[in-house]
């Protein structure tokens, strides 16, 4: 079943947002309640946080299960398998999410 673009791009409830941690129980204070906000936070959060969540598969789970975007979740899974770290990870993740966001927004516009 295909999830509508509007659903993937929506703002989720506070309890469903993504909370960025750097390690077990260590919350950075940064969170994202939409894919747009998630993209923004990729640029801002501590690199340790990106590495922590990528290794735990947290990004894939949130994007697939909460936002409903199986395609982006699959792309991020591929990134995890490449074992990218540091700023290369930030850049690559930003690229994947921004590209997907752009596609979703174009697709949403054309479907109107």
């Amino acid at each position, binding site marked *: 079943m295909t999830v509508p673009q509007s659903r993937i791009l929506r703002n989720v409830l*506070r*309890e469903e*947002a993504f*909370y960025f*941690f750097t390690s*077990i*129980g*260590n*919350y*950075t*204070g940064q*969170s994202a309640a939409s894919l747009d906000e998630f993209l923004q936070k990729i640029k801002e959060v501590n690199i340790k946080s990106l590495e922590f969540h990528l290794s735990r598969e947290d990004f894939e789970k949130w994007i697939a299960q909460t936002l409903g975007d199986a395609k982006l979740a699959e792309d991020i899974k591929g990134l995890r398998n490449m074992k990218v770290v540091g700023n290369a990870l930030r850049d690559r993740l930003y690229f994947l999410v921004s590209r997907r966001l752009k596609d979703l927004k174009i697709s949403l516009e054309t479907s109107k």
Partner: protein
Amino acid sequence: MKIKGQKVTLDELDLRILHLLQENAKLTYTEIGSKLDVAHSTVYDRIQLMEEHGVIKKYKVVVDLEKAGVQQIMALMTIHTDPKESEHIASKLAEFPEVLEVSSSFSEELVINAKVVAQDQAKLHSFVAQSIAPLPGVLRIRTSIITKKYKEEASQPFL
């Protein structure tokens, strides 16, 4: 023990009874009386009064979880909050069964401290991520997992 309105003042005998009960709450009135050289009826009266006035809150069992075969981890959390929300956050924390203690402290800024238990690290993280981080006013959280205890007093001494 003297009672004036809501204020309770304990005397030396009350404090000595409390001390013995903190060490072993199963002591009988007779055993306490004999240790303190007073009649068991005196001990009974004092304990009754301290229970009635909430000086003695409850009697509890301290379990050695390792010997009981219970697998769990304990962690200390420092929660930095928006000062306007700290009271509310502390109250919410106190409602979770995973949270054993909640207090606030002040050094460079006001923080909330909590002692939490969980079955394992994964469950600890889920609890923090799903129940604590989303609370309005939580700015950031530092969590330290306890690896070894060097001292643990079940009762608080009267200094």
